[in-house]
């Protein structure tokens, strides 16, 4: 027997009058407390000219408010042994900090303050420009980043999923403080935010504190809904990159459903069947070095020596996104052979669906992945905020139930619709300047 709910701490969920959504998940045994603020805006809310602005703004929210001068947010949290960070995605931007439980107050104060009062001083914005450029340059050193960036460029022509959250280099070079300020004023505000507090705290005291700190904020945050709809492609799109690296890479992306579409659970299970795990329900995020020897891509590509790694990835997104298959060829193996093998794997799944044994194993993975997903205040805060920022209450449990109830025929039919060659984008990366390791 297994539960049809994801095991998680009890959550009190409410909304302030200004629209801020609040989730409190107390765990009296926890020595730590974690505060997360998720904004339902990300790089999808940029436009050409300000790409990378959401991410740059995320950096700037650590650079000072009238109350917390530059560096004081870091010092306030780190000096008590806390950790803090933030990240920007296509769909959302999240800020978090975890501290020993007795220091929780300061986190709520910081998040309320920087929701609307970040300084964004031109001098500091300019100084941070080289830091975000450096972050981008560091990523560009990896062929995998170049391939993924090219893949999204190729697959999307209208939708803002087209560019990476790091933005185009030329936009970063030309944007200024006013651009960041415009984005901040427009989108950052209570109506677009989810506040999560998890871990060791007194829920009544924290609820009072949340009201005291956040209720005075004006209702703000423009509707972040993206209206652009990516039109169907008129055939397969291909691109070849070349540069330094180890062995050739190939990435194939198919148009995929959004997280709330009916075929989302089957798409997630296709990810498990092909690549061995699915991001949302993987066992604690600690995989066996990314190796899933039972997965179909692994068996078809890595076992016979065509590739040194092969996997799939479906990132659940608010809008229709991409289901991607990646492979890195073994030394001396041509990408044509790798691509033919990938096509064979996808074709077989689309024709016959998974076996009963495979489906049972995939469900086991999902159940086990869910079992420990909420361990620790930080992870609990992440997970609660992630789901609350992209979907309505109860969504995680509904998704979980549907995952466990999806039939083989639904997976086959979804695979058939998903793996349409005229709707795919293919990027190859060829290595130049080959090296020998002897």
């Amino acid at each position, binding site marked *: 027997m297994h539960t049809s709910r994801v095991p998680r701490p009890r959550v009190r969920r409410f909304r302030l009058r200004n629209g801020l959504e609040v989730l409190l998940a107390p765990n009296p045994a926890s020595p730590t407390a974690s505060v997360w603020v998720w904004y339902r805006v990300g790089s999808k809310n940029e436009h050409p000219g300000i790409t990378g602005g959401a991410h740059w703004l995320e950096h700037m929210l650590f650079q000072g408010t009238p109350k917390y001068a530059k560096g004081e947010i870091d010092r306030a949290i*780190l000096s008590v042994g806390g950790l803090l960070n933030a990240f920007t995605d296509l769909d959302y931007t999240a800020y978090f900090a975890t501290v020993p439980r007795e220091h929780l107050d300061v986190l709520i104060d910081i998040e309320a303050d920087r929701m609307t009062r970040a300084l964004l001083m031109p001098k500091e914005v300019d100084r941070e420009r080289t830091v*975000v450029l450096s972050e981008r340059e*560091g990523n560009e050193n990896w062929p995998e980043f170049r391939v993924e960036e090219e893949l999204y460029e190729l697959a999307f022509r209208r939708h803002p999923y087209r560019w990476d959250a790091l933005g185009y280099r030329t936009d970063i070079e030309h944007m200024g403080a006013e651009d960041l300020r415009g984005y901040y004023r427009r989108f950052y505000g209570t109506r677009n935010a989810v506040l999560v507090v998890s871990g060791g705290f007194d829920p009544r005291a924290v609820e009072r504190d949340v009201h005291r700190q956040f209720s005075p904020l004006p209702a703000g945050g423009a509707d972040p809904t993206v209206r652009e709809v990516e039109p169907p492609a008129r055939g397969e799109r291909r691109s070849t990159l070349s540069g330094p690296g180890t062995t050739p890479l190939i990435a194939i992306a198919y148009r995929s459903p959004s997280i709330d579409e009916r075929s989302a659970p089957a798409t997630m299970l296709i990810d498990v069947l092909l690549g061995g795990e699915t991001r949302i329900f993987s066992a604690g995020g*600690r995989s066996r070095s990314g190796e899933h020897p039972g997965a179909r891509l692994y068996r078809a590509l890595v076992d016979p020596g065509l590739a040194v790694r092969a996997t799939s990835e479906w990132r659940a997104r608010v809008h229709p996104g991409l289901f991607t298959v990646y492979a890195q060829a073994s030394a001396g193996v041509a990408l044509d052979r790798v691509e033919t093998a990938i096509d064979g794997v996808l074709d077989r799944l689309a024709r016959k669906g998974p076996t009963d044994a495979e489906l049972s194993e995939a469900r086991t993975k999902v159940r086990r992945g869910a079992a420990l997903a909420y361990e620790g205040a930080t992870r609990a805060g992440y997970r609660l905020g992630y789901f609350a920022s992209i979907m309505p209450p109860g969504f995680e449990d509904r998704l979980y139930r549907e995952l466990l109830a999806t039939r083989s025929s639904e997976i086959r039919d979804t695979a058939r619709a998903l793996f349409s060659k005229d709707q795919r984008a293919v990027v190859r990366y060829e290595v130049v300047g080959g090296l020998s390791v002897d």
Partner: protein
Amino acid sequence: MEYGNHDAGLRLLRQSPPAGAASASITYVGPAGYGFDPAGGEGIARMVARLVTCAAGPFGRVALARELDRAGATLTSQIAPESAEITIWGPAAGWESLLELLSHAVLRPRFDSEDIERVQRQLRESQLRELTQPAHRAERELFRTIFPLGHPYRETGWGSARSVGRIDRSRLARFHSEHYTAEGGVLVATIPAPLKRLERASARWRGPFARARAPSSLRPRPVPGHRLVREVEMAGRSQTEVHVGGPSIARNREEFPAAFLANEVLGGRPLLSRLFQNIRERAGLAYHASSDLEAMRLGGYWIAQAGTNPGSARRVAALLIGEVDRMGNELVRARELDQIRESAIGEMALSLETTPTAHELAVDLAYHDLPADYWLGWPSTLRALRPRSIREAAALALDGRRAATVLAGPLA
């Protein structure tokens, strides 16, 4: 945390999972690091560490993966110059099954031929990655510059296509039997059960494993004592990696706590450290700028590093070495020291948030044979340190005079 007994010489350490945690972790650490790679067989330690998690005992590769999935567990390996760690993580209620699976991996790896061939292919790709990726290349060249031929920290353990190609099943089995031993090894368990039960359950860890003697210790050779700079031109990349580093002290040295704190001030403490503050926050020259101190049983090394635009690489190298020198030449101001110290102490609470993070503390403690109450005394140890002892430890353990600098990437 409490130590236990295993009559074959394997040391045991047990602790309970943090309050509210539902997972357990168990780790075997053995004297099986890549510093033990034999001449001509470079890469063997990494191969064994990978292969023990692939197929073991009655389980072939796919069967083991299924068994782990059924248990909701993950099995991973990590390797360093002196040691290899094999860790299983999964639901706390099933810790005895986890221990059983771990025992198969550590004691009875299969070394099936198709797994050997696959791992050889993967290692060859990793060797290329080390040569073509600026961050990896900088680290490789740094170690080769700091440590002389034959030193166990000189190589990074990936070997060459030729050396990995020569490794066959019998060599793997021999390396395994000589290095995955009870003597010289530790078994650390973060489980919801008393020590007695762990002792009983681990009593089954016997056979050749228990009879083998630990390998004779690695003997690091002396390290040259002068500054060197190496530049590795790597065209076609966007960023240049700058690594500065040198030899350091062993973990059991009495100066370690002060050296630890000196490294935290230099670049080890995220966001607060001097490297982060000066290179990123003030100068805007890099996204990442940090330092690491790796203190092992026999010795150690330190690295200060940053990734930067090629046009800034030499300036960043000068800033890195300048901050290293400052640590050994000047006293840390009391306010700066207090802030870093309290941050390091406060972080202990965060380590008790999940089983994996709490488990890491226990593994570190057991491997270095520290007293069971070591972490309880850590805050007072750190608070007793004064600026003078920090400076002296920095001069010893983060010695800029014996540092090498490597720039890998496009060079302006």
